[in-house]
């Protein structure tokens, strides 16, 4: 009690400076009126010089009120931003998330309710000095309306964006939400669209890209300008193998002035929302005949505006628990658990021991999961673009795991024993350490060994966990651990179940021997993964390390047997230790191999985009001379925008297909480390930093600069021009 009291006082003391600090910054942070709270927030914790940082206007709109999209619809007005920025810093346009349709009797507005992020790219000059802050100031002009009235609310928002070198991690408060809005915001996707006007009806046909070959479901077209369509009218049509056709009631501008130019807007279907630009022209073929398209219901949940809510959290936690349970059946984990269960049968007659072992096992599992989760979250906070399965992207970890699997398999085969050797020579398998310690480490081992199995099965829960605030994420990880440990703990805590377990005997040894084989299999699989990442030479080293490991463990095992027979066995043990050290050195070298100069080999994990070569002017000239288009990606590992672009567009199958069709060359200029040639090229293009995407077409002197927020469609469209 007294200790608790002291702890509380200590906590209180720690909070004091925080509170004073918070008061000292009056203008930053959220500003509010009765109707809306707004705040300027950053996606990343800091901005690297020469990069594009993303900030966002976060609106928290009171219930009953709304703000507007770029085209407000029948009434209202869009949110506008007036920036005051330091020298050299510039702000781009708002990346508008998909709006809601808000019906006010016969009027329809396009806008937002609740919590909305409006992301804005901010260009940070390359000469921004690390250690300084960029004071950003924006006058955000909101028109906030309810059914009864409209109020212009102007709020001045500020944000001090720190400048630092290196990978900027996502801002813990808003980073994940902004990144999601950015990823989901409608962007061009290689859709071709035509529009024609007849008798007050605009016929919009859109084909290709993501529209081809799918039933679009209920759809809707949001024009960028008002007056183009009657916002309140239903939009119906049909779809075909290539895309869809929508009949739109023309708006006042169309009816008065006619159709004089292209119509831009956002097309929403069941499968996604994309930016399109409809050129005046006859209906495109393949956009009717397969079925009807109905108007998308109003008030479809605003995409991407909801931060990680409690329901998502609960769902992720539940899936984590289920996933943990399923893990018990995985080939990597099952043998260990089976072994442990077998050990349990030995103590089955003593429920107290069994219960203690069960809880120790649980503790082991949970502790290990916490450590693993901590490492993951820590890496993420440090700016590594990691997802779950990150451990599998790293060749050293794969190599280590492969050897661990081999060791476990050898243990199961009876080549050597762990731990028990000293006290109960020979008789103790892995789990026979004194007290609960053995059970604890079995739990830990189960988790470590389970790691390779988790990635595919836990994707949902862990994916969700990674975008949550860290305490929630930790809970999700713990649920996973709980699920993994649950069956075993339940059995060990229930005397009735314990009594049903078969008596220990020779069958246990045979079972263990059999269970060794899934482990050998896992080791081989990991070896294969490793070879894909690090190449054949490194695999050779890994094999050598494996051989040495087996030899070493065999020597150790022999030593243990010697001791079990009452001899000293020092020679064996020493030799074993030496060989094991050699094995360690081998795996270390194998893991280092991928960092050796042989980086021309595509070392990236499979599916990470078109094969690339390093950027150089010579490479561009060569390709152009051969008549091939060249796509250059100026990127850096610490550039979050670059990574988002690479994940969402550069690696998409559409882009790969189009690159193949046009025989394009993909060059990567990696600016992760200082590179003066790249810096010079960036400056030549009037850029202070990455990302920068250049598309060189044969026969054209100057490359085309693609937008900084890329989509598959943008690249595909640009490449199409290169088609013969």
């Amino acid at each position: 009690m007294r200790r608790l009291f002291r702890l509380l006082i200590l906590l209180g003391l720690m909070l004091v400076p925080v509170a004073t600090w918070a008061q000292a910054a009056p203008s930053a942070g959220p500003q509010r009126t009765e109707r809306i709270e707004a705040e300027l927030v950053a996606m990343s914790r800091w901005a690297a010089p020469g990069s594009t940082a993303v900030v966002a206007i976060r609106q928290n709109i009171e219930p009953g009120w709304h703000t507007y999209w770029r085209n407000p619809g029948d009434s209202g007005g869009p949110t506008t931003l007036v920036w005051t920025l330091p020298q050299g810093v510039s702000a781009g346009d708002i990346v508008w998330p998909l709006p809601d349709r808000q019906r006010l009797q016969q009027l329809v507005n396009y806008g937002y309710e609740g919590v909305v992020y409006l992301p804005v790219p901010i260009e940070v000059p390359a000469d921004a000095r690390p250690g300084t802050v960029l004071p950003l100031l924006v006058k955000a002009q909101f028109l906030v309306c309810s059914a009864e009235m409209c109020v212009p609310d102007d709020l001045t928002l500020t944000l001090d964006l720190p400048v630092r070198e290196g990978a900027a991690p996502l801002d813990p408060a808003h980073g994940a939400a902004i990144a999601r809005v950015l990823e989901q915001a409608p962007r061009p996707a290689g859709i071709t669209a035509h529009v024609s006007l007849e008798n007050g009806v605009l016929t919009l046909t859109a084909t290709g890209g993501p529209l081809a070959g799918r039933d679009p479901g209920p759809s809707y077209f949001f024009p960028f300008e008002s007056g183009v369509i009657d916002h309140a009218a239903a939009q119906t049509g049909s779809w075909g193998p290539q895309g869809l056709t929508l009949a739109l009631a023309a708006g006042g501008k169309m009816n008065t002035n006619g159709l004089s130019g292209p119509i831009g807007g956002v097309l929403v279907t069941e499968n996604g929302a994309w930016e399109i630009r409809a050129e005046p022209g006859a209906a495109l073929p393949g956009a009717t005949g397969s079925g009807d398209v109905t108007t998308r219901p109003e008030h479809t949940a605003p995409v991407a505006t909801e931060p990680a809510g409690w329901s998502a959290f609960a769902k992720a936690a539940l899936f984590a628990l289920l996933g943990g349970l399923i893990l018990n059946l995985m080939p990597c984990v099952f043998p260990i658990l089976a072994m442990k269960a077998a050990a349990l049968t030995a103590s089955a007659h003593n429920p107290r021991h069994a219960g203690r072992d069960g809880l120790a096992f649980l503790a082991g599992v949970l502790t290990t999961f916490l450590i693993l989760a901590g490492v993951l979250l820590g890496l993420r906070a440090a700016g590594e673009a990691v997802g779950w399965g990150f451990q599998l992207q790293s060749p050293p970890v794969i190599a280590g795991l492969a050897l661990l699997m081999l060791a476990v398999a050898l243990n199961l085969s009876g080549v050597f024993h762990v731990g028990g050797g000293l006290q109960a020579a020979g008789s103790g398998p892995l789990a026979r350490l004194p007290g609960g310690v053995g059970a604890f480490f079995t739990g830990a081992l189960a988790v470590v060994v389970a790691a390779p199995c988790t990635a595919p099965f836990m994707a949902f829960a862990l994916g969700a966990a990674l975008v949550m605030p860290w305490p929630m994420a930790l809970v999700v990880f713990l649920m996973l651990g709980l699920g993994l440990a649950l069956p075993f703990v339940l059995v060990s805590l229930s005397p009735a179940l314990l009594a049903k377990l078969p008596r220990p005997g020779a069958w246990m040894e045979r079972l263990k021997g059999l269970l060794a084989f899934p482990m050998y299999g896992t080791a081989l699989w990991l070896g294969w993964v490793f070879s894909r990442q690090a190449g054949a030479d490194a695999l050779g080293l890994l094999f050598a390390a494996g051989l040495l490991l087996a030899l070493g463990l065999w020597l150790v095992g022999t030593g243990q047997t010697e001791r079990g027979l009452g001899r000293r066995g020092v020679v064996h043990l020493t030799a074993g230790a030496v060989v094991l050290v050699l094995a360690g050195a081998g795996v270390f070298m194998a893991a280092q191999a991928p960092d050796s100069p042989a980086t021309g080999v595509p070392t990236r994990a499979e599916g990470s985009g078109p094969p690339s070569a390093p950027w150089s002017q010579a490479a561009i000239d060569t390709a152009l001379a051969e008549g091939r288009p060249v796509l250059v990606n100026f990127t850096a590992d610490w550039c979050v925008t670059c990574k988002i672009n690479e994940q969402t567009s550069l690696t998409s199958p559409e882009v790969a297909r189009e690159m193949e069709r046009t025989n394009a060359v993909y060059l990567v200029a990696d600016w992760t480390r200082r590179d003066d040639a790249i810096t010079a090229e960036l400056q030549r293009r009037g850029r202070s930093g990455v990302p920068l995407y250049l598309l060189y077409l044969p026969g054209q002197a100057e490359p085309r600069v693609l937008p900084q927020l890329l989509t598959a469609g943008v690249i595909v469209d640009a490449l199409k021009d290169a088609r013969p």
Partner: protein
Amino acid sequence: MTRLITVALAALTLAACQQQAAAPQKAETPAPTPVAAAAPGAMPMAGQMAPAFTLVDAEGVQRSLADFRGKVVVLEWTNEGCPYVKKHYTGAMQALQREAAEDGVVWLSIISSSPGTQGYVEGDSARAWKTRTNAGSTHLLLDPTGQVGKLFGAKTTPDMRIIDAEGRLVYVGGIDDKPTPRVEDLQGATNFVRAALDDVQSERPVRTAFATPYGCAIKYPETVGT
């Protein structure tokens, strides 16, 4: 026993998969009936005859559009609580109204706000409107049922119509090309109503016959409660 656990876990796996598959659908299902077809009828555009109407003015006198045949008539939907209207009533709108009056144009300001909503006026409040707003309108017409507003397809305040001496619509839409509620944006804006009136006075065809109206939604009777 083991078999039982296996079966249970397999069932859980299945359940997990199904739940995952069902999740995206769930977001879509609460589909409210799509778009009640409350289309306000085709909005009369420039070139068409203006629909006839009769409304009571602030003084309680009945005014029909037909009363003003032979004169150019401006219709202006207004709502004094609306920030967009306030922007124009900082002097610009009143000046335009007086210019028009000097040219013999009839200016009818119309309030289509339903009772109890923003902008609604009656009785003394209606009679005092012109003084209160310093308006130069010919009459203030009250349209609490919203019928005349809907007849003309008026959507926002302000929303403007110009009807020529023959009763034909020559201008439909927004008042200018700066759709903001900010007074400073009056500066440099093109006022389409002034331009159209000039065209009409000079017996030229109206160059800009439509501009997208902008502003606050008109508070029609059924509007409340969204």
